[in-house]
């Protein structure tokens, strides 16, 4: 039933009712744009708070890295760690053989020849003193066995390197960790190599025991022998060769490369079997837990910092966590800012090319890392002064 107009002089007519659909349409057209605008303003403000920060003071969590290298040239015998593996300070990471086993074997052969020469020269004299204990002869035998032992060790080391290489070939794994589809070595060849390596190893052990036994006998005889019984020239020659054998033994010992501090192996530069030069990086070890932030105040410098100031440190990743650190030290001059800390448009040449090669200087400031923040070394953070 429709309402009728109540037309009476001097009074307004009763307005007809407005349907809900029309009211909603009016709301949609009149009010929704303002509501939508306000909502977007709210969302933008929320995003802004989390995203936009003053880029005037930027920093990077300090990354402490140690490069492990060999003091001398040689061949990398065995890298015992892999990338991203945790290591402790002093842990042996790799071994370096400073002398090539074949060269060492040649030097040992030379030494053996010299010992034989001494032995021939001393035979006539020794025969004259056959009633006494033949100490020089025993020493010569001992040195001869030491030579054999060193020779066996060199061969064994060479066999071990070969065996490691052949095992890799058999498993089809390359140095980079990638696997080839088919092995390039038969199991039979690998078994032969393993057998040879075992034989050499057994020979080393036997000779080592023999050398130790003869060495002990010499020590007993040396303690009881009389002065002046030995020929001076023979004795001096034996001493020379003995020292030479000591040198060969020391060269035989591999150089252990150890971790400089607790951390993680971040890069493996060289792999087992590779030839290296002195000082060449073999492994890079990174400290696991950073302790401070290396930051730069960009120009124009509007923040005057001094040690002890409280600083808000805000992560750029994840939930943009915030912590409070403290200024540890302030630089005395402006220094180049790491490009990773600058906005992507910063340093862009006038031509619009994205090279970004222009260097920007800033004031370096060291800031302690807040304990509540979980940041990785190298992570970029924003900083702001909280209290002076």
């Amino acid at each position: 039933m429709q309402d009728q107009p109540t037309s009476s002089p001097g009074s307004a007519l009763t307005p007809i009712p407005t349907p809900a659909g029309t009211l909603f349409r009016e709301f949609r057209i009149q009010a929704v744009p303002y509501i939508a605008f306000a909502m977007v303003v709210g969302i933008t403000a929320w995003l802004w708070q989390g995203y936009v920060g003053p880029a005037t003071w930027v920093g990077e969590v300090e990354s402490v890295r140690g490069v492990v290298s060999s003091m001398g040239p040689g061949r990398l015998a065995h890298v015992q760690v892999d990338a991203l593996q945790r290591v402790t300070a002093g842990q042996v990471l790799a071994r370096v053989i400073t002398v090539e086993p074949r060269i060492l074997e040649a030097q040992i052969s030379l030494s053996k020849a010299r010992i034989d020469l001494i032995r021939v020269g001393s035979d006539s004299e020794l025969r004259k003193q056959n009633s006494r204990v033949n100490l020089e002869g025993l020493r010569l035998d001992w040195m001869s066995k030491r030579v054999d032992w060193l020779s066996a060790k060199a061969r064994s080391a060479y066999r071990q390197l070969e065996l490691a290489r052949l095992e890799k070939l058999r498993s089809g794994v390359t140095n980079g960790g990638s696997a080839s589809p088919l092995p390039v070595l038969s199991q039979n060849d690998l078994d032969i190599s393993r057998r040879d390596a075992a034989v050499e190893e057994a020979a080393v052990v036997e000779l080592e025991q023999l050398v130790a036994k003869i060495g002990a006998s010499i020590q007993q005889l040396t303690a009881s022998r009389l002065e002046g019984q030995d020929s001076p020239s023979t004795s001096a020659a034996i001493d020379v060769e003995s020292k030479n054998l000591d040198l060969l033994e020391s060269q035989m010992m591999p150089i252990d490369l150890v971790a400089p501090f607790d951390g993680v192996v971040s890069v493996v530069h060289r792999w087992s079997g590779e030839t290296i030069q002195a000082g060449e990086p073999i492994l890079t070890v990174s400290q696991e837990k950073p302790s401070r932030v290396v930051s730069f105040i960009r120009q124009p410098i509007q923040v005057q910092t001094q040690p002890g100031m409280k600083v808000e440190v805000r992560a750029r990743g994840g939930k943009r966590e915030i912590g409070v650190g403290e200024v540890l030290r302030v630089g005395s001059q402006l220094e180049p800012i790491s490009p990773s800390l600058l906005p992507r448009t910063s340093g862009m040449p006038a031509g619009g090319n994205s090279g970004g090669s222009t260097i920007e200087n800033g004031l370096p400031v060291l800031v302690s890392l807040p304990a509540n923040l979980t940041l990785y070394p190298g992570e970029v953070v924003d900083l702001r002064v909280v209290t002076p």
Partner: protein
Amino acid sequence: MNLSDLILRGDFGTAQDDLSGILLGLLIAFLCGHVVAWVYMACHSGLSYSRSFVNSLIVLCVIVALVMAVMFNNLLMAFGMMAVFAVVRFRNILRDTLDTTYILASISTGMAAGTRKFSTAILGCLVFALVMLYLHWTSFGVRHRYDLILNLHWGRPLDELPRLGDLLDRHARRNQLASQRAGGTSDGADLSYRILLRDASRAGELVSELKAFPGVSRVTSLKAEEESEM
């Protein structure tokens, strides 16, 4: 990897884009465009007012923000976009500004997808679609809306016209006397009203009441579409 990772971390272009930054840019562009449009609506004078142009002011801001996010610092991509737009524009006459924004939106989202910035493409497309639906749903940009154009002859003295106004107010949320032509010697005038009805389904009732109203004659009505503007 879950679906959100697939969508939000799907940019494989030259550099991984920060999607929250891109979204922030798009929203700021929307707000700025909105303000510009409101200012235009408030300040515009003359007969050339167009609702689609007002909508374009908002959408263009968003699309340009998307374009800049896609070809950030990349001069080659900028030239590529110009070339694509030129090819499209060369064989098409786009009379409506809003149509141009659709072309631009298609090009920019296509470029984002083509440069392997998949997340940016999805985000940009979603924001563009939401903005367009919002503008359509709210009829944004309409300044003067009327449901009915009413022409009648008022045969009584003009100082009695407020009585007619009372009747119109009964049916209209808003009415505007658009034109008034007074006769030379006789009393009364030809009047034209633009009316926003309280209930559009009862427009006939208004006409009937007007015909029965003393002094009113020659009543004709014309239903106005929602988009009819002054």
